[in-house]
């Protein structure tokens, strides 16, 4: 039998060889050809842990930290270790109920699994943290974890500093995946603009983890680890006390304050009203606060100093005078006779003064803000006989204003600045099909019509006037600690722009004198500070708004621009208070207080009362109440439509019983809330050219 079956031993050998060959081929395939398994193994076992350095600190011009870092605590939970704890006690510490507690535990289990820690409650309020710290031993599985948070010791400069937040997908794409989900990044303000400087250099620790993602120790003894480098501190031009004062003065008002050091372009203060405390958006209640601010129709989150666009009004007049002087169409000594209005065009441009001789020369005309004089001056500039063509005249005029930094973004070191608007010939050619003359847009001469400027632009144009022709791009950051040649981010703010130095010093002096007269004897006497020569210009600009589909004229915007001291300008201030009446009533006192605070470093005791008076004045436009009500009720209605939850809408229906017209509100959704947003002025103001009655 054995002989008979001899050949079968070879078949058995062949079977062995065959199976071994299959194994060898698969091993070759796995280990030599396919490269993906190595990466998979790394992903499995090596956990690249990012080390976040402290972000840089921002100091004011006197070395006080406006923006600093602090530690707050998150409560984390490792679900698998939670055993035999007094749930009720923990819930009472955290002020939640047991149902919420169970839900969060389940969420944590679902999100990160039972053996890894998950944030249970983030950014604990200090009182809660202290209570928990004492009792944490009672709750196995719960730990307090440090977390660096931004803090604002002066509760000021919210709009300037911006905030840090988690990256979103847009930023990830834009930055080419330099960041990772969960990273914190500057989302607005200086935090965003100087992100690269402030963030420092992230470090990387490679750690070994096991199959349950528990950390086992460093990978390859930390051979590939890189340490984190702290973010660099920055020194700014901001005077934090002035900033605080500006914000205090804008309380209860819609408007903006910008103060610039003209010699450097450094911004001393920039405030926007209504504002908010930056610490509101860092602590435990940040989401709640953010929602409140976000839903407020007066838009406290908006930085009106760079995003509010206003008709310049009479604050434009010094610029108009300089242009006309440089173009040679007027002389300082010549004036006009004004009897209360400018009648040369079809519609009269009214003037607040009508006594004889208030416009008999340039100085007087500026001091008393004569509308007739500047309407006339504008027409002379446009109809300049030198060019023999009003198109060239208007074009020249707009070029001058562009040189003054109006009509385009200045390039301040904050993101999303608005550019304002200076109309040129193409705008009017389009609108009037080429048939227009200097009368068509005569109110440009008093800063109305299509002219729109931001408070920052107003301040910057006055810097040029104060500097007699040059400016630096307004900016906040003076220098970065440990600055090297590679730090090019500040270079553009160190270039002197000699834009209008060709205007003669005499012309500037004339205008300065006129502006000084504004304070000494003219419209802006409220701004007088003993011992300092102040140059200023008031403004009272008409403004209109679409409210519920109707174009409504609102109370005039109160505006004020000034610089001081005249001989050696150290501060330029521009103030806008929306719908507050004459420039001298509210904007003037605010500017005066800010100049005094900055120049004298302190306020006289009798001026403190003035601070309180201005600060306590509530000048919020009345239509906001109604707009807020509309926005809220429409939201409630939409919420009701989605959820069928009547509790929210009931509130409004009840009120509707009192105010009969509001019952129709939900149907009236065709006029969306956004249009009624009073803060973003419609850009095309030409459709409702003002009846001119402006100072």
């Amino acid at each position, binding site marked *: 039998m054995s002989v008979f079956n001899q050949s079968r031993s070879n078949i058995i050998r062949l079977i062995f060889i065959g199976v071994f060959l299959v*194994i060898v081929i698969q*091993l070759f395939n796995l*280990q030599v050809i396919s490269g993906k398994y190595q990466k998979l193994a790394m992903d499995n*076992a090596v956990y690249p842990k990012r080390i976040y350095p402290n972000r840089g600190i921002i100091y004011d011009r006197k070395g006080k930290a406006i923006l600093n870092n602090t530690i707050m605590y998150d409560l984390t939970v490792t679900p698998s270790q939670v055993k035999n704890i007094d749930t009720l006690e923990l819930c009472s510490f955290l002020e939640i109920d047991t149902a919420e507690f169970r839900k969060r535990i389940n969420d944590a289990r679902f999100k990160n699994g039972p053996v890894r820690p998950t944030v249970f409650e983030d950014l604990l309020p200090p009182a809660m943290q202290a209570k928990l710290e004492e009792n944490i031993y009672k709750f196995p599985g719960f730990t307090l974890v440090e977390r660096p948070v931004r803090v604002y010791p002066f509760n000021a400069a919210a709009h300037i500093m911006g905030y840090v937040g988690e990256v979103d997908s847009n930023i990830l794409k834009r930055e080419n995946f330099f960041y990772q989900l969960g990273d914190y990044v500057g989302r607005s303000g200086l935090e965003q603009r100087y992100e690269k400087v402030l963030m420092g250099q992230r470090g990387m620790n490679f750690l070994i983890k096991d199959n349950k993602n528990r950390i086992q120790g460093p990978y390859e003894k930390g051979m590939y680890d890189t340490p984190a480098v702290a973010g660099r501190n920055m020194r700014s031009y901001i005077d934090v006390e002035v900033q605080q004062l500006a914000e205090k003065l804008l309380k209860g008002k819609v408007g903006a304050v910008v103060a610039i050091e003209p010699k450097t372009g450094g911004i001393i203060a920039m405030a926007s009203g209504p504002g908010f405390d930056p610490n509101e958006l860092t602590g435990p209640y940040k989401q709640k606060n953010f929602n409140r601010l976000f839903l407020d129709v007066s838009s406290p989150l908006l930085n009106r100093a760079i995003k509010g666009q206003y008709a310049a009004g009479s604050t434009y007049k010094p610029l108009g005078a300089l242009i006309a002087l440089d173009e040679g169409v007027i002389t300082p000594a010549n004036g006009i006779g004004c009897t209360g209005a400018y009648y040369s065009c079809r519609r009269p441009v009214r003037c607040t003064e009508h006594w004889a001789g208030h416009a008999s020369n340039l100085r007087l005309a500026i001091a008393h803000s004569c509308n007739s004089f500047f309407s006339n001056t504008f027409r002379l500039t446009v109809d300049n006989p030198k060019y023999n063509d009003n198109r060239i005249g208007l074009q020249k005029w707009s070029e001058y204003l562009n040189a003054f930094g109006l009509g385009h973004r200045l390039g301040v070191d904050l993101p999303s600045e608005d550019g304002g608007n200076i109309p040129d010939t193409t705008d009017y050619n389009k609108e009037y099909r080429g048939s227009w003359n200097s009368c068509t847009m005569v109110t440009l001469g008093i800063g109305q019509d299509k002219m729109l400027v931001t408070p920052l632009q107003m301040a910057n144009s006055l810097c040029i006037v104060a500097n007699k022709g040059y400016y630096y791009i307004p900016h906040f950051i003076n220098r970065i600690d440990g600055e090297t040649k590679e730090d090019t981010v500040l270079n553009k703010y160190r270039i002197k722009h000699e834009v209008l130095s060709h205007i003669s010093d005499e012309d500037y002096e004339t205008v300065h004198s006129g502006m000084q007269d504004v304070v000494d004897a003219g419209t802006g006497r409220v701004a007088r500070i003993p011992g300092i020569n102040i140059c200023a210009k008031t403004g009272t600009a008409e403004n209109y708004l679409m409210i519920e589909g109707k174009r409504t004229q609102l109370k005039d915007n109160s505006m004020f621009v000034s610089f001081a001291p005249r001989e050696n300008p150290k501060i330029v201030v521009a103030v806008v208070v929306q719908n507050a009446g004459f420039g001298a009533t509210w904007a003037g006192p605010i500017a005066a207080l800010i100049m005094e605070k900055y120049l004298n470093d302190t306020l006289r005791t009798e001026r403190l009362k003035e601070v309180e008076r201005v600060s306590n004045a509530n000048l919020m436009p009345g239509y906001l109440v109604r707009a807020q009500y509309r926005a809220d009720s429409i939201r409630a209605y939409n919420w009701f439509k989605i959820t069928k939850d009547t509790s929210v809408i009931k509130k409004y229906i009840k009120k509707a019983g009192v105010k009969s017209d509001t019952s129709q509100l939900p149907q009236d959704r065709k006029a969306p809330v956004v249009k009624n947003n009073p803060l973003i002025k419609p850009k095309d103001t030409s459709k409702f050219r003002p009846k001119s009655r402006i100072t």
Partner: protein
Amino acid sequence: MEHNPAISKGIDWVLVWIFIVLTSVGVLSIFAATYREGDDLIQGFFSLKTDYSKQLLYFGIAGILGTFILLTDSKFFTATANLWYAFGILLLLLVFPFHTSVKGTNSIIKFGSFNLQPAELCKVFVNLALAKYLSRVETDFKKTRSQLVASAIAIVPAILAVMQSETGLALVYFSFFLVMFREGLPAAILIVGFSLAVLVVATLLIEPNILAVILTVVALLTIYFLRRQIKRRRQLLFYIVTIWAFCVGVQRFAVPFMFDQVFQPYQVKRIYDTIGKDYVPKDASAALEIEQKNKGKKKGETGNYNVKQSKIAIGSGRILGKGLLSGTQTRYDFVPEQRTDFIFCTIGEGFGFVGSMVLMGIYFLLLMRIVSIAERQRSVFSRCYAYGVASVIFLHIAINICMTIGLAPVIGIPLPFISYGGTALLSFSVLLFILIRLDADRQMVLR
């Protein structure tokens, strides 16, 4: 081993050295898989508390046992083969009243700290008994009756093993069909068996109706090509139709029946995992059963997860490997059961393709050596026994390694001489040393 001329005469030293090398590799691999930084090395190796020290102890016991076997007269094994077999079956039966449930198997009897797994040990006895039966002068292996008896010898312990939910170990007993094949079992049986396996796999992979159509087309084509022969022999047509009907029957009824009624849901799931299909439990109780089987494991840490991690471990070894104690996969518990069934991962990850090839080479050498030893035997008993050893070892290697590289379903059987486990190492050693003893006495004709 003492170099005593009396015992060492005729001993095949190649096998002895392969045994030593493989077992040492095993201890080293277990060490690599379970050693953690900071453990005391010396204490670790001699405390008998760590797995590698225990394996080292078993290595020693295996050596002593081997020496005893070498000292035994080879006639002893032929004489007592049937007795051993009876003892083995008795042990297997004893498992039912005396087993301890360990990790989902019911096949272990505990003696103090020592776990005895009779199903593991029994293959030695089956091998002896089968060799004894085949070498009997009265046995005419051409007769169907003898073939059935021989099959029964192998299959009875397999059935007992299945009843102890040790499907993997049961599978091993089928390796004895290779021995029977060598001794004259018709090749057709192996071919039919293989075809049946292909049919079952195809049933799982292909939509039932499509497979039925394919089978019909194949049958029709066969009839078409064999039409001349069929004209001559009408019977042939009948055979073809019968085979077709059988195949369709298997595909339509037998396999679904097996999967629904015979296999446990978790086993079905493992088979589905291997062929890369999603298994949808037929009802809630089946789903529950799978869940209970996977209880205590992380979500996803099922058969599929094991194979995936094992493939990652082996694949990430690349050509030269990460080095001993540097494998991240095997050292941080990503691969489950890595001391026992998935021990090959440690070698694949630590020593890469080269290391795996060396190990495969050693195994190949072992198998080829045993086959050539078998062929040089003059006694049928020794030859049958040698083939039995080769077949058992071969099946273990093939299934274990195929499982770790994703070619076979996850079946828990050890890698010979390398996997951690006392019973397994001892039974393989005994299996091998009896062969060495028998081979040493190959000149003795009559047995």
